[in-house]
Structures are given as structure tokens and as C-alpha cells.
């Protein structure tokens, strides 16, 4: 299928692979089991007929209001600043259950200037990196989610390129995901329910990644067994 350049964004669904089940079943060094699951999903996609098309990366940094801001009444808020290789010149800044700002890459420079007010919790930086696959009108991104040196889970992002109205193609996305994810295919994401018939946008993808990363961060980290 010919790739359209400068495409407007199709609808994306970001799902979490069940790395919890995979890791717990295999008492080996953590990294290897996540990798095996990723390889399994990759082989399934290739068996369907998907073609590899380069790599992708999504990362998320966490900022929290510094103690200095206590008097503002805004204590305890977390702000996420994210990047997506699909949009290399952009930066996404969001609050959980709050607005998602799309800005150009200079936003990162601004956060440096704001370091007296917003502290970067560097240990919380989380990212997903992996391969892009194209299958007809679908674009699948299969990524290993890492925090620092440790692999913490798997993300699967599926995009249906021709459609921009989320609710019109959710069923099709579900069916496609089931064909290679089986019972691990997810339920309808919360961003879809608020979209109704409005057009999908890159910010919606980033909200889904943020929710996925938050879920993975809370999952218990796999104890390193040290046995192969």
C-alpha cells in the first residue's frame, strides 16, 4: 500500500501488551522476557504481511511544582512533557485530566528557564522505542517501554490512516488488533468517549501514551532473577 506523505493523522489506539503475564510466567532476567514477547508480536505481524518501516520513539518526562510554589494552592500537580518521533518538531505538554498543549521544540528550552518553579523528576522519565510496521491502511508501532535501564513493558500503537473520526473506526481497529494480539486486545480508550464525532488529533495519542506510561510505572517492577 502506498504511503501517503503529509497525511493528516488517522485514528490511533495505544494499548499495553500484557508484559505482567509474560514476565511472571518466565523466571528469567527481566529484559529477555519482555524482548521475547515483543519478538512474538513482531513475528505475528510479519506473518499477517506487515512491512517494517523504520523505528519510532515516544518519551515522557515528569515535572512537579517545586516546593516554592506552595502558596499558589497548586500543590502536587504533575505536568508531563512528551515527544513523539512522528512529530519531530513538536513537544506535547499535558496535565492528567487537563489540557494538552501542542508546542514547538523550544518548549523544552522554556522548561529549563522555569526550573525554579517546575522540577524535572529525572528518575521518572519513561519511553517506548521500537519498530514501525505498515499493513495496508494500518500503521503498527511495537515498542519496548523502558525506565532508565530497565524494560518495564510493551506498548502497541495501532493507527488506521484513512479515518479521522475516532468513533467511526473503533470497531475496525479492535478487530485488527485482535488478529495479532488475540485476547490481549484492549477495550475502548477513554479519549474516544469524549471525542464523539470530532476529529482525532495527535494530542489524543499522547494522552493515551501518558495513561499507558502511568499504568506501567505503577506496575510492580520485575525482580531481577539473574537466571537465564
Amino acid at each position: 500500500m502506498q504511503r501517503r506523505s503529509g497525511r493528516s493523522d488517522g485514528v490511533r489506539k495505544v494499548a499495553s501488551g500484557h508484559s505482567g503475564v509474560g514476565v511472571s510466567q518466565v523466571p528469567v532476567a527481566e529484559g529477555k522476557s519482555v524482548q521475547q514477547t515483543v519478538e512474538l508480536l513482531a513475528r505475528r505481524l510479519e506473518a499477517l504481511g506487515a512491512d517494517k518501516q523504520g523505528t519510532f520513539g515516544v518519551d515522557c518526562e515528569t515535572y512537579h511544582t517545586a516546593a516554592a510554589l506552595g502558596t499558589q494552592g497548586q500543590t502536587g500537580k504533575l505536568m508531563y512533557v512528551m515527544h513523539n518521533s512522528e512529530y519531530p518538531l513538536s513537544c506535547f505538554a499535558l496535565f492528567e485530566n487537563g489540557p494538552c498543549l501542542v508546542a514547538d521544540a523550544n518548549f523544552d528550552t522554556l522548561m529549563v528557564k522555569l526550573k525554579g518553579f517546575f522540577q524535572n523528576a529525572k528518575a521518572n522519565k519513561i519511553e517506548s522505542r521500537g519498530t514501525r510496521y505498515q499493513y495496508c491502511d494500518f500503521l503498527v508501532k511495537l515498542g519496548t517501554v523502558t525506565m532508565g535501564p530497565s524494560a518495564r513493558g510493551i506498548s502497541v500503537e495501532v493507527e488506521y490512516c484513512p479515518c479521522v473520526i475516532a468513533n467511526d473506526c473503533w470497531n475496525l481497529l479492535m478487530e485488527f488488533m485482535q488478529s495479532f494480539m488475540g485476547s490481549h486486545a484492549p477495550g475502548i480508550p477513554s479519549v474516544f468517549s469524549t471525542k464523539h464525532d470530532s476529529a482525532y488529533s495527535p494530542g489524543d495519542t499522547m494522552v493515551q501514551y501518558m495513561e499507558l506510561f502511568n499504568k506501567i510505572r505503577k506496575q510492580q517492577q520485575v525482580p531481577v532473577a539473574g537466571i537465564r
Partner: protein
Amino acid sequence: MEAPPVTMMPVTGGTINMMEYLLQGSVLDQSLESLLHRLRGLCDNMEPETFLDHEMVFLLKGQQASPFVLRARRSMDKSGMPWHLRYLGQPEIGDKNRHALVRNCVDIATSDNLTDFLVEMGFRMDHEFVAKGHVFRKGIMKIVVYKIFRILMPGNTESIEPLSLSYLVELNVVAPAGQDIVSDDMRNFAEQLKPLVHLEKIDPKRLM
């Protein structure tokens, strides 16, 4: 608390600290046309460009003495343009021979939910105004001649009144830190606008 002087900051992650070099002056309403006429002659040959912008200035107060200031600007007459978020640092204390005001600046294009986002971050709007005028360019220099309007009711940009009987004239360049030769070029250009307008380095602190 402002960031430390830019010349002391390391270049991190490939980002370059950009500086704004600025000269300012003003002309009375009745002298506007002759100034525009001269600028059309001196500046780059391009379609005359007018603008109508709405700017909101936001402050973030912390325990530090001075609040952090951000400026959010949107076009009122051109649809589809991104919003413009701007940070301006304190003017650098340079030698007296430097001809222009120099301060660190960060310019960011954003989506149109900028004001909601700034409020979520803890910023509060301090003041707002409408700016209407003309833009000219000469190489990397930008010359803006505009009138500031006071907004009579907050959030209502339909009902505005001029702040003064004059137009503000600004000559500015945004360039990487350390390019002081820029201010020499600016001074030379400013000479050509005399006596219609006198552009000078005006330190905002000295006005207060």
C-alpha cells in the same frame, strides 16, 4: 527568579540561547505616514504587512521576589496561525558601547489552548492589550510600527481604545548569543530613520 545570565549558561542538548536585540522609539499619529513611506523605501521589497494582535501577559508568583513573566500572543486578523508564547529575560548588563538592549528570549509556537494551559500551570493573567500596526523587514532586522489599545472589558477585544496619540516603533533582531555586531547594524539602520524617529536603547527598569 530569573535564569542566570545567558553567557554563563552551558549549551544543553543542542539548544542555542537566543537573544533579542532591541531599539525603541515613537512617533506621533500625524507623522506615521512619512515614517511608513521611508520604511517602504529602505526595507526589503515585499507586500506591506499589517497585523492585529491580542497579547496577554501572565505571571507566575512563587516565593522568589520577582514573578516569572510569559507573554501569550494571538493573531486577531489571520486565521489558522498558531499562538505565540514568549519569554524575555532581564536585559543584560553589557558595556555602554553596546548600542541595543539585549535580553534572552525564547519563542514558542503553540496550539490555541495556551491560556488554559498556562492557568493550569499556575500562571495568572496580569494584563492584556491589542496591538495594531505594520511590519517591515530588512535582512534579519524586523521593524514594527504599532499602536497599543487598552481593552475596556477583560476578554472583550471588540471594545478597545488607543492608549496614546502615538505609535510605538521597534527595531529588533533575534540572534544567537554573542553576536554583538548585530547591534552595530541596527544602529546604522536607525541612523537612516532620523529625524523621523529616534530609536534608542531604553531600559524598562529605568522607567519605573
